[in-house]
């Protein structure tokens, strides 16, 4: 299992993303587009998995954190960038500034995570879900009303800094940070908080702290994913980060199997490819055109079927005590 040796995995993945970045121009643009979205979805799903899966909170606000990161990073490169970097600045400095913008997006999103994490100390399950849902809506309304950031129309003309190297290097770091953290004696605190808060407290585990840390770190990576997304689509608007976007990420976590990092990565890949695959299938012959046209319906039917047949997640092969049928 690659997660057993996390440092080697990290180095290998970073090397692979450098190679991907070098050969990006030789690849088919459509292929690059799909790969980029896969990478961003991996970051989003794995970071949400820390909150919803490992720690057992229920956040519906991941797109909100993403929006915070996307707007912060875009503001840095669009408005502050030209003042700091001369037009002739070498590529290296542009890249450095982009990294700084992404980190800033992550940090502002993490601060938002701290704000949203606070109610999670008093609320559980459905109630917490509603609070995070409300947070997502508030973020959307706030950005709609900040005129310098484009208001309801959003921001256009964000520089195209995102490439496969950035996406997959950051995806690798996200996976590394979250698995290395969870797979330690310290990290058992997240799982204990998920399993039984009362027992965890009685064993000296500060569940409050673990929940906040989960929200802050999850939001941080969601913010970075937002920054990557903005510099990939080159245009962002509050509508792109609404509630349905959050649901998409939640579905990836559930399909992959809550708390199962490998499963969540595979689900992020699969669910990004699925609509593309259905579209391609519809294009094969006119008689299959209906597949392409009823994509949203087929997608939903597949999800329903999946939850009926494998409620523990498509890729969850671990025999979890909770899900085991009691005999």
């Amino acid at each position, binding site marked *: 299992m690659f997660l057993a040796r*996390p*440092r080697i995995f990290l180095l290998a993945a970073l090397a692979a993303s450098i190679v991907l970045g070098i050969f990006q121009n030789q690849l088919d643009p459509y292929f690059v587009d799909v790969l980029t979205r896969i990478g961003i979805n991996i970051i989003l799903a794995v970071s949400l998995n820390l909150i919803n899966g490992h720690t057992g909170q229920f956040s519906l606000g991941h797109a909100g954190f993403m929006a915070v990161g996307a707007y912060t990073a875009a503001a840095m490169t669009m408005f502050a960038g030209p003042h700091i970097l001369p037009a002739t600045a070498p590529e290296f400095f542009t890249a450095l500034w982009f990294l700084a913008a992404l980190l800033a997006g992550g940090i502002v999103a993490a601060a938002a995570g701290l704000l949203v994490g606070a109610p999670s100390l008093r609320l559980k399950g459905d109630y917490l879900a509603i609070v995070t849902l409300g947070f997502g809506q508030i973020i959307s309304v706030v950005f709609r009303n900040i005129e310098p950031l484009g208001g309801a129309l959003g921001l256009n003309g964000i520089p195209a800094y995102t490439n496969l190297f950035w996406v997959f290097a950051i995806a690798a770091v996200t996976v*590394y*940070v979250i698995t*290395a*953290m969870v*797979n*330690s*004696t*310290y*990290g*058992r*605190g997240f*799982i*204990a908080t*998920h*399993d*039984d808060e*009362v*027992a*965890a*407290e*009685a*064993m*000296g*585990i*500060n*569940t409050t702290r673990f929940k906040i*840390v989960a929200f802050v770190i999850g939001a941080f990576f969601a913010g970075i994913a937002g920054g990557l997304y903005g510099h990939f689509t080159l245009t962002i608007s509050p509508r792109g980060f609404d509630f349905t976007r959050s649901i998409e990420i939640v579905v990836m976590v559930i399909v992959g199997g809550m*708390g199962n990092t490998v499963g969540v990565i595979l689900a992020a890949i699969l669910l990004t490819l699925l609509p593309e695959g259905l579209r391609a299938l519809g294009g094969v012959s006119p008689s299959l055109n209906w597949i392409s046209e009823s994509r949203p319906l087929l997608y939903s039917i597949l999800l329903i079927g999946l939850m009926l047949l494998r409620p523990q997640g498509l890729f969850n092969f671990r*025999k*979890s*005590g*909770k899900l*085991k049928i009691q005999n």
Partner: protein
Amino acid sequence: MPPLLQLEKVSIRFGGLTAVSELDLQIGAHELVGLIGPNGAGKTTVFNLTTGVYQPTAGKISFGEKSTARLRPNKLAKLGIARTFQNIRLFASMTVFDNVRAATQLHRAHGIRDALWRGRHFRAGEKTVGSQILELLEIFQLGKFRDSFAKSLSYGDQRRLEIVRALATKPKLLLLDEPAAGMNASEKVELMRLIQFIKDKFQISVLLVEHDMKVVMGICERIAVLDYGVKIAEGTPVEVRANPKVIEAYLGEEIISE
């Protein structure tokens, strides 16, 4: 020497119901005290008060001469109070080993930064913790189940795993909430021996809530009897057994006269 745990006139009311009323209770260092009483007498409430799950409506609880008022359960665990639960509350998605590992949180030598860097310090720390956990599991003959999920253990083994998990926090006071429930006769005998053993080996005090009179009378040095939240008797097993108030509270139950 001052007592390890001291409850002074502790009361707690839930709406109109007084679950525990003006309770005085002391537990000294390295003492094994039993807390008995009919169903609903308030025994588990005393546990919840002692571990910070509930705050008393009136009265004072101190542990090692420190007041425990307004301290959360995880802080009290840090001070040295560990417990098991009447209805087993193991971490269901974790293995036997990890259940105990989660409880070593208090004494771990590393935090997030070490876990991310995974340097020598981290690996050495994890190794030490691992061997300590296995040692503890072996005492309770649970070593062979280290990689099984906690939920797959038999009822008796789950109860014993809860004790191991509580001991992993390195407590000064261990609260056992009906540890013999659901055990057969030979398991109960084994459990009595085990409670004595851990009390001596780890030099801890034990407060035992138990319905099985044979267990309580067999190992406790002192017994307090609760009825409707009021302490009606306290003393050695022999004294308690002969107390007319206790016999009345347990009227119709022959267990007390055994």
